[in-house]
């Protein structure tokens, strides 16, 4: 219990530091630390799948995205023109925040006891899905339509980012190398780490059916390995107009949708699995979905195609 109190105080302290920091880069670093501590909190809340997702996606990829953005903004910004908020605005914001926090804390105290839960229903049907991890069962069997929509949302966000590219830069390769040549130590570590990372990513995806893990966590690790390899100059980035890239991006949602529609014929409802082959169908969906999500996440981090920065 005292460990939990200490962890809570630490998380709140780092979050407060993220808000109060003067420089944007310092705030982003604080945000990455906050994400990792939050992953710790998720483990304490007996949610290891969420902890993996938070550490990899919420802290890792988001942190990488924000660090890149903050460094580019710092280069392009004139240091002068920041208007600081007045005291009245700060006081009003503080009052509003305290009210919202107090309201949420009251809600936490007023939660019904005994707590309503769907765990018994989830446990009752999990044998039929052939899975051992209840969270994966919820994601891929009970609420598979949420996962399908989530994958489509990822793709739409990517389309949104691509639509921000200036017309003249559309066919360019995504050149992620910075203005200086990649230092050789980065190339060395990429050559060492990327094969290990790919194996770890595939392992986490594969083991997600019986233990904490799953396709989102595995796909995030694969996307990170691709980003590392492209930063080190090991892979020449593909242009977004290439057909194979678009095939990899869309094959996941396409297979998911196809199996969902086939569910009408096979089991009587959209995204219903036939009883004896549920695990097989889930696997057939998960493999292309992992590939697609990995590609989508990597491209989301890479951003719109643009001419190389000077």
């Amino acid at each position, binding site marked *: 219990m005292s460990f939990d109190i200490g962890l809570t105080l630490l998380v709140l302290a780092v979050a407060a530091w993220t808000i109060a920091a003067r420089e944007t880069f310092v705030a982003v670093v604080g945000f990455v630390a906050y994400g990792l501590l939050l992953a710790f909190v998720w483990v304490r809340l007996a949610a290891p799948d969420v902890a993996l997702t938070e550490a990899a996606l919420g802290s890792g990829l988001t942190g990488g995205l924000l660090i890149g953005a903050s460094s580019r903004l710092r280069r392009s910004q004139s240091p002068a023109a920041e208007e600081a908020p007045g005291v009245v605005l700060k006081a009003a914001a503080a009052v509003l925040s305290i009210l919202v926090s107090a309201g949420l804390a009251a809600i936490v105290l007023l939660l019904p006891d005994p707590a309503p839960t769907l765990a018994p229903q989830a446990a009752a049907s999990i044998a039929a899905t052939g899975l051992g991890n209840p969270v994966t069962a919820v994601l891929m069997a009970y609420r598979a339509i949420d996962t399908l929509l989530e994958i489509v949302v990822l793709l739409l966000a990517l389309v949104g980012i691509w639509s921000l590219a200036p017309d003249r830069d559309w066919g360019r390769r995504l050149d992620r190398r910075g203005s200086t040549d990649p230092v050789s130590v980065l190339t060395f*570590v990429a050559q060492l780490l990327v094969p*290990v990372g790919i194996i770890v990513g595939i392992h986490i995806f594969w083991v997600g059916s019986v233990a904490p893990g799953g396709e989102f966590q595995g796909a995030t690790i694969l996307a990170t390995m691709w980003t590392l390899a492209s930063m080190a100059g090991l892979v020449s980035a593909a242009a977004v107009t290439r057909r194979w890239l678009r095939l990899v991006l869309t094959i996941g949602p396409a297979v998911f949708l196809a199996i969902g529609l086939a569910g009408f014929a096979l089991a009587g409802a959209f995204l219903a699995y036939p009883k004896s082959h549920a695990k097989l169908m889930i696997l057939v969906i998960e493999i292309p979905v992992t590939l697609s999500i990995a590609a989508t996440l990597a491209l989301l981090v890479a951003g719109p195609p643009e001419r190389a920065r000077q």
Partner: protein
Amino acid sequence: MSLVLNVLSVLAVCAGAFFFLAGTVGLLRFPDPLCRLHALTKADNIGLGLVVIGLLFRAASPLTALKHVGVWLLVLLAGATVTQLIAHIARPSGPRA
């Protein structure tokens, strides 16, 4: 779990925590980015190594112990790489004569 293994594990983890503390003090107090990098990586690698050794005493199976050591090796690799990259930016001309 025998008492001796328990005590050894706690001692190792405490020693590791001390090295983390030393590295953080170095980060806050040293004057120069390169000195701070030195303090961070040296202390944190040894600190994490001692924590991992402490956890090895409590490992549930050889595979778990192997995973702990694997984590330590990966952190070593990441720390060494990032240190080199930051040092390259802090002093691009290389070691001074």
